[in-house]
Structures are given as structure tokens and as C-alpha cells.
């Protein structure tokens, strides 16, 4: 798949939503657990059901986590911030507006690194999720069923600059972002259930220094694989239009995972007018720099920093380090392990990464297992030579073949000797004596 064909280069930004795993919802004390709810509409209250007289109160933890994510991604934090109302009508939006953030998001101007280069983050803001719609036919009639268990669950939105230049880069960006979110343990990001949702803004340009005059928004992408597919399809579709001398329509398109194609959703003549204004029910937030720094100091050491530290301190290769942990607890365990292993740490990391040994429940247990598996016993030279002689005697035909040139049979003799010895011995020592005996 080409990123550049003729002169066309992909200009792509991603908007990613993730549901935070707070205990309670964003603006009320209802349980935040929509995926595990056994029945619909059991986690609601006057607030998240949009009852007359309901009033929102902001979940402190959700705000703290949003800012912490921003800090982890190198963002600036708006010391003065607020929530705004975003108006549109839809049955899963109980108040007829969504409480979101418009011009003063909690975080802005950050960055995520990928192997293709950095992707800048425009902003990170916090908002509430909507209810869920289910389509069904009841008594011959097509209806939509609505469940508000998910209504007002805290939703974090991360918007990137259009720095993404390929489908692969998009995928890596999304994966890296998810890894950090999960590392901070603020969201489960389960894409099947909609715990994490992707939207891509896609256009093509011939001049990398000039932004295209249009952009196509693709929604309903719920896996990393689909991101790549959607981008690939869009690039081809848009290129055909551009080559015909026209401009692709600025619109929203859906993605069909079965066909791998995007399709036009009802195009609106009027752009959506959300009539944003500051939510009068929610006093604004004013943070001090000290507060932000206190939150920053609570951040765990991030994966990239850990990998670097392990390399510098223990000599562990990054390519092994990166696959060995996804969570803070695992990283802590491994830290303990490297400290025990000292100069053996790189070897240990290699074996763990290649799944030659398993990581146990504790560092000590793992270290003991490793040592046991690697301790060699001393062996008497005469005993060794006796056993070697026996092995060679029972495998005379193989000896002839070895001496005839099939030197790979050395491993066979090694195996036989080790078996006959019945104990863990220094392989080097055995090989030395074997080679001598065979020559």
C-alpha cells in the first residue's frame, strides 16, 4: 500500500474516545458499569436520565485522570477550564445536549511518538457518553430500543493533529495511546464493547506544506485493523476523485467492516450547529500550578522511561523490554527481578521475551526457578569420559557418519550424553570432551 502515489500524501488525524473506568458516572452517582449490566436501564437517576429538575455535579476523579493522561502525553494544562453544552437532538441523548468541553479543554498541545515519527495531540477533553441504541423489529414494526445505563459515563476525547501519514502509522498511534491509557489504569479500552472508539479525518494533499481544503470524517471504526483498511480505502477513493480534477465532498462517512469500504452517511446541507455555551449548572475549574505538579508527581514512571532505564541500568535490550509488561504491577515485579539477577538480567529478559521461561508470581520465585534451571553441577572428568565412551560405543554408526562429515551430529551426542549423565552439567565442558573423544 502506497502512501505516496504520484504526489498524493495522506493527511490524517484521529479522534479517539475512551470510557473512563471510574466507579460512578461523570455527572451523577450512578454506577459506571454499562458493559456488565444484566438488564437495561438499571443504572440511572434523575440526572443521567435527563429528568426535569436533574442537575449535574462533576466527578473529581474523572477530571484528575484526564489531566494525568494529558501530563503523561506531554500536554499543557488549562489552569482555567469549564464544561459547555453541545446541543443536538437524538433519542440516546437525554437532555438534548451533551455536557462536553468547547474552547477550554483540560489539556492541549501534547505528543505521542511512533516509529514513523511523532503525532501531535491537539487537545484532550472530558465529556459524558450517551445512552445506547439497539435496532429491533417488534410486532412487525422497526423500532429503536434505548438503554441509558451508559448515559453520562465519563468519556475522554483525544484529538490529534493531522500528522498521520499512513495507515500503519495510524494503527501504531492508536495502539500506543491505548497502551498508555491502560498503563495509567484509567480505562479498559475494550474496542469490541465500544470502550474505545476511533474516528479518522482523512484527506490527501500534493503539497505536504499545505493542508487540503477538505477533509472526510470516517466514523464507526472499532478495531486497529479497520483503521488501516478504512484509510486504505479512503485514500484510493479520494485519489480517484482528485485525479478526475474534483474535490472529494466534505462529509461524514461510515465504515463497513464486512466490505472494508466506507460509505456516505446522509450528507447535511447545513453543518451541525451545536450552539455551544458554558454550562450554567457547573462552576468552572481553576487549578494552581502546584496542584498540577502534585498530580504530575503522582504519575507512574511511564513505559518508555522504564524501557530506557532498564537499558541503561541493567543492559536489557528495548525490544525485549517492550514486550514484557503492559501494566505497572508487572513492571514493578520485573524491576525487582532485574535487581536480583544483576548481570544475568539481559539473559533473563531474553528468555522471558522468547517464552523460554515463565514469569512467576514473585520476582524471587522467578529468580529461583531460573537459577535452578541454569545451575550446573560439577562433574568428575573421569566420570564424564566414561559416559562419553559409553555413548559413542552405543552409537558407532553415528560416530562413523560424524567422522564422515556430518558434524551436526555433535548435538545428538551432546543430548545423549546429557541424558546419560542425568544431571545438569556445564554444556561447554561436555562439548569439549566430546569433541576430543570424536576426533
Amino acid at each position, binding site marked *: 500500500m502506497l502512501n505516496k502515489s504520484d504526489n498524493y500524501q495522506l493527511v490524517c488525524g484521529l479522534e479517539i474516545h475512551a470510557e473512563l473506568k471510574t466507579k460512578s458516572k461523570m455527572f451523577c452517582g450512578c454506577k459506571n458499569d454499562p458493559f456488565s449490566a444484566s438488564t437495561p436501564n438499571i443504572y440511572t437517576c434523575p440526572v443521567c436520565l435527563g429528568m426535569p429538575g436533574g442537575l449535574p455535579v462533576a466527578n473529581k476523579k474523572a477530571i484528575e485522570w484526564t489531566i494525568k493522561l494529558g501530563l503523561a502525553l506531554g500536554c499543557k494544562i488549562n489552569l482555567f477550564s469549564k464544561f459547555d453544552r453541545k446541543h443536538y*437532538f437524538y433519542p440516546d441523548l437525554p437532555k438534548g445536549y451533551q455536557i462536553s468541553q468547547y474552547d477550554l479543554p483540560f489539556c492541549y498541545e501534547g505528543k505521542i511518538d511512533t516509529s514513523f515519527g511523532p503525532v501531535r495531540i491537539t487537545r484532550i477533553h472530558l465529556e459524558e457518553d450517551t445512552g445506547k441504541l439497539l435496532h429491533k423489529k417488534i410486532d412487525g414494526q422497526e423500532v429503536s430500543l434505548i438503554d441509558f445505563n451508559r448515559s453520562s459515563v465519563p468519556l475522554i476525547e483525544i484529538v490529534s493533529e493531522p500528522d498521520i501519514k499512513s495507515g500503519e502509522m495510524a494503527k501504531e498511534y492508536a495502539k500506543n495511546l491505548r497502551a498508555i491509557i491502560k498503563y495509567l489504569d484509567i480505562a479498559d479500552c475494550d474496542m469490541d464493547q465500544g470502550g474505545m472508539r476511533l474516528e479518522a479525518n482523512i484527506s490527501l494533499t500534493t503539497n505536504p506544506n499545505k493542508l487540503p481544503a477538505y477533509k472526510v470524517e470516517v466514523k464507526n471504526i472499532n478495531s486497529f485493523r479497520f483503521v488501516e483498511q478504512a484509510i486504505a480505502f479512503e485514500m484510493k477513493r479520494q485519489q480517484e476523485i482528485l485525479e478526475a480534477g474534483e474535490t472529494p465532498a466534505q462529509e461524514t462517512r461510515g465504515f463497513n467492516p464486512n466490505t472494508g469500504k466506507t460509505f456516505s452517511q446522509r450528507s447535511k446541507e447545513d453543518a451541525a*450547529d451545536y450552539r455551544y455555551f458554558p454550562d450554567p449548572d457547573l462552576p468552572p475549574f481553576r487549578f494552581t500550578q502546584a496542584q498540577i505538579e502534585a498530580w504530575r508527581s503522582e504519575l507512574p514512571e511511564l513505559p518508555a522511561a522504564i524501557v530506557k532505564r532498564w537499558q541503561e541500568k541493567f543492559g536489557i535490550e528495548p525490544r525485549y523490554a517492550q514486550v514484557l509488561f503492559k501494566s505497572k504491577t508487572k513492571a514493578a515485579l520485573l524491576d525487582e527481578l532485574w535487581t536480583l539477577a544483576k548481570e544475568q538480567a539481559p539473559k533473563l529478559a531474553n528468555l522471558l521475551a522468547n517464552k523460554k521461561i515463565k514469569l512467576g508470581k514473585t520476582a524471587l520465585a522467578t529468580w529461583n526457578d531460573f537459577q535452578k534451571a541454569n545451575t550446573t553441577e560439577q562433574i568428575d572428568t573421569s566420570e564424564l569420559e566414561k559416559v562419553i565412551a559409553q555413548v559413542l560405543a552405543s552409537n558407532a554408526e553415528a560416530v562413523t557418519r560424524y567422522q564422515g562429515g556430518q558434524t551436526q551430529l555433535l548435538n545428538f551426542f551432546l543430548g545423549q550424553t546429557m541424558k546419560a549423565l542425568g544431571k545438569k552439567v556445564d554444556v561447554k565442558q561436555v562439548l569439549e570432551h566430546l569433541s576430543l573423544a570424536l576426533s
Partner: protein
Amino acid sequence: MPDSGILSLVKTAKISQDLVQKIARLAALNPTQKQLQTYQDNLDEIISYMDEVKNLNLESVPETARVLEEENIFRDDEVKTENMFSQKEALANASRTYQGYFVVDKILENKEE
């Protein structure tokens, strides 16, 4: 009756019926032709009165969206079962329900957002 002098100071801003129609749609209202005419007349008068605000010199004045001076009002991340509805209570006032769900005719259009 209050001073008509105020009214005479302002410019007239005509609001077209087309615009009233568009705004009504935005607000999910569906007025009849007769209502549209009435609203257009009323709004015309009211909006020219509103022009007073347009004509104030407010360039360097900050907006006040709220009069409560307190800031940083939060709740702790706790589940408050005492404020939650049972499913029955949640559905109690709905005209159409089905197996614990609220029901509407199938949405043909995609979400605006």
C-alpha cells in the same frame, strides 16, 4: 407603558420566515404556517429591541456566564445507590417500553454528532 423612546433608538433587524423555519427545525419544533407568521412578527419586534445589546460598546468587557462566585465544585467518585432509580422507576413515565428498554420508532437518519 414603558418608554417607547427606547424602541425608537434601535435599528430594525428583519428576521425572515425562512430563518424562523430553520431555527425552529434546529429546536425540534414544527410550527404551522400560521404559527410561523406569528413568530416572525413577534420575533421581528423583539429582536429589534434586542439590538440594544448589539449596540453597546462591550469590546473589552469580559462575559459573565454565572453569578455564583464559587469554583471547583466536584463530587467524589462514589456510587450513590440512594439516588438511583430502579428499572421500574426509570421507565415509570415512558409511553412506550419493551423489556426494560425505552422505545422509539426506528431512527432512519444517522446521529448528527
